[in-house]
């Protein structure tokens, strides 16, 4: 049961940008050298600011794109474009934007059946329909919603439809790409509770991509903190929140609002901008903004070290 279902080693994805008909573009290293393992029933949160490679990671895991380097194993199968089709149904995704993720011209019933039409061609129409109706109930919508168009629903309901669609193929891994960041706070908790419930019921493994640390704290088992395409810290949720080791994680945590008014606020303000991923600095990517940076940080890149609580820093806490 607890053998990891997803194993990623040294995953990297580089993009060529700005290339034209005759000119060659530059290389953007959107993601480099990310390792992780994901077990059934567990939630791995990936945290970081915009442009840190979270969504690129999602695109690799969901097999929309092929990694430039590194290996990805799902269920002990090495993932290559040749076996994408057969592995696809074990990994599904719920997107961030509930307004863009459903085709406005298709009815809910059809949206839910489409994954089956493509991936289970031998299934009969009646079976597909029965399954879609069952799924609608499972995610807390009503039977009469089956024949409606997406614009007739609220954001939270649309996200339920999105979740239902992701579950149609009975996946074992669900990538949650900021599933609640576009929703009202009151709706967020409903959706999160639904996700927790489904996880317990179906033994799903979640890859939870987020920038909202308070949600992560509520939801995750393990956390990876990313900065500019690299994992800078990886640990269990408790460790990360109680004793962050990487300066970036510390800075990130200091920005989370706390409910306790007596707690001393020591918000760490970062100077400067996120460096361009085009530059490919020789040293630690965080060094230009880090208050602890030394010469060593600017010339050599620290590796992620430590088994239970890994950190990529020369001067951890």
């Amino acid at each position, binding site marked *: 049961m607890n053998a990891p279902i997803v194993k990623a080693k040294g995953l990297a994805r580089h993009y060529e940008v700005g290339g034209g*008909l005759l000119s060659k573009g530059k290389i953007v290293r959107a993601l480099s050298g990310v390792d992780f393992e994901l077990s059934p029933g567990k939630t791995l949160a990936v945290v970081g600011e915009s442009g840190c490679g979270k969504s690129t990671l999602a695109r690799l895991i969901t097999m929309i794109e092929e990694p430039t380097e590194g290996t990805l194993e799902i269920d002990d199968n090495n993932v290559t474009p040749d076996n994408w089709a057969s592995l696809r149904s074990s990994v599904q995704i719920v997107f961030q*934007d509930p307004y863009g993720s*459903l*085709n406005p011209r298709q009815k809910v019933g059809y949206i839910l059946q489409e994954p089956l039409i493509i991936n289970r061609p031998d299934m009969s129409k009646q079976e597909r329909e029965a399954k879609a109706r069952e799924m609608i109930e499972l995610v807390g919508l009503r039977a009469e919603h089956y024949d409606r168009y997406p614009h*007739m629903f609220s954001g939270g309901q649309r996200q339920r439809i999105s979740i239902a669609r992701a579950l149609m193929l009975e996946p074992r891994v669900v990538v949650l790409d900021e599933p609640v960041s576009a929703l009202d706070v009151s709706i967020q908790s409903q959706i999160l509770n639904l996700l927790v419930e489904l996880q317990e019921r179906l033994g799903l493994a979640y890859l939870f991509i987020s920038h909202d640390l308070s949600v992560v704290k509520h939801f995750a088992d393990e956390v990876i903190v990313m900065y500019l395409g690299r994992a800078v810290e990886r640990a269990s949720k408790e460790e990360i929140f109680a004793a962050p080791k990487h300066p970036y994680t510390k800075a990130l945590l200091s920005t989370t609002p706390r409910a306790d008014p007596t707690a001393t606020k020591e918000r760490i303000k970062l100077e400067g901008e996120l460096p361009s991923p085009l530059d490919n600095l020789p040293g630690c990517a965080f060094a230009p903004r880090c208050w602890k940076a030394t010469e060593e940080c600017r010339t050599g890149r620290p590796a992620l070290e430590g088994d239970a609580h890994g950190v990529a820093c020369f001067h951890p806490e």
Partner: protein
Amino acid sequence: MLDFIKRHEGLWLFTHSPSVMIAAIVALAILIGAVFAPWIAPVDPYDLSSFSLMDGLLPPVWEEFGTSKFPLGTDDQGRDMISSILYGARLSLIIGVCAMAIASILGVGLGLAAGYIGGRFDAVVMRIADIQLALPAILTALLIDGIARGILPPELRQDMRVVVLTLAIALSLWVNFARTARASTFVQMNKEYVQAAMMQGQHPLRIMFVHILPNILGPLLVIMTVDLASAILLEATLSFLGIGLPADSPSLGTLIRIGMQFLLSGEWWILWIPTLFLIALVVSINVLGDFLRDVFNPRLR
């Protein structure tokens, strides 16, 4: 429900805009006249035995010497103007609609693929489109006409005129469709439902035509209407210049060219009546196109 309101709203806008209603009535009347020309027209202008030189150059009925037999007068051969115009409009519309259809299939297909695939394919298609834009439509048509004359055997040339003309017009119009389709496809590509379809493993062609195409139809419909008017005008221009249809199967443009010869000799109706007819047709189609754009783009209202 939104679709219903949109349709409803469109209908409301339609009934509250007299110019659009007039344009629709004019366009519809011309369309019916053209489609049913063989049954409506008093004589068949292609049938030489149906008219007589003795009736040549008769003015319209309200002028002196006009007769009620030829309400809009006759040309120098004695052809009834009404019949010529109805048959001419028929040819103009057939060529215009076919050219627009070919251009839209070619342009939308290429634009959709360019937007979807992106990268080098997109660059190549769009550079070809740029080259096409740099050539005036008339030059393209002349080029194709010239090539067709060179390739086709002489006995086929006359029969293929309509086809060559249609292709020439289609080739100069596809760029509009390709650009619009590409830009709209880019917008849709960023929406997550397209990514959802991708990661379900749907075939790219299915994603393009089942998911993206229905969502970009609005702007394309507007271009179709506007380009229909352009296609008709372009056909008229080419026929006017003498590289379009010959005098024995006249389109509106050919009629205008023939009418030019009588401009200074007093028989004004041979030129002006087909010209006014062409203007009415093109203006009404354009007004309808503008209206469609307003319906599909609420921000412009």
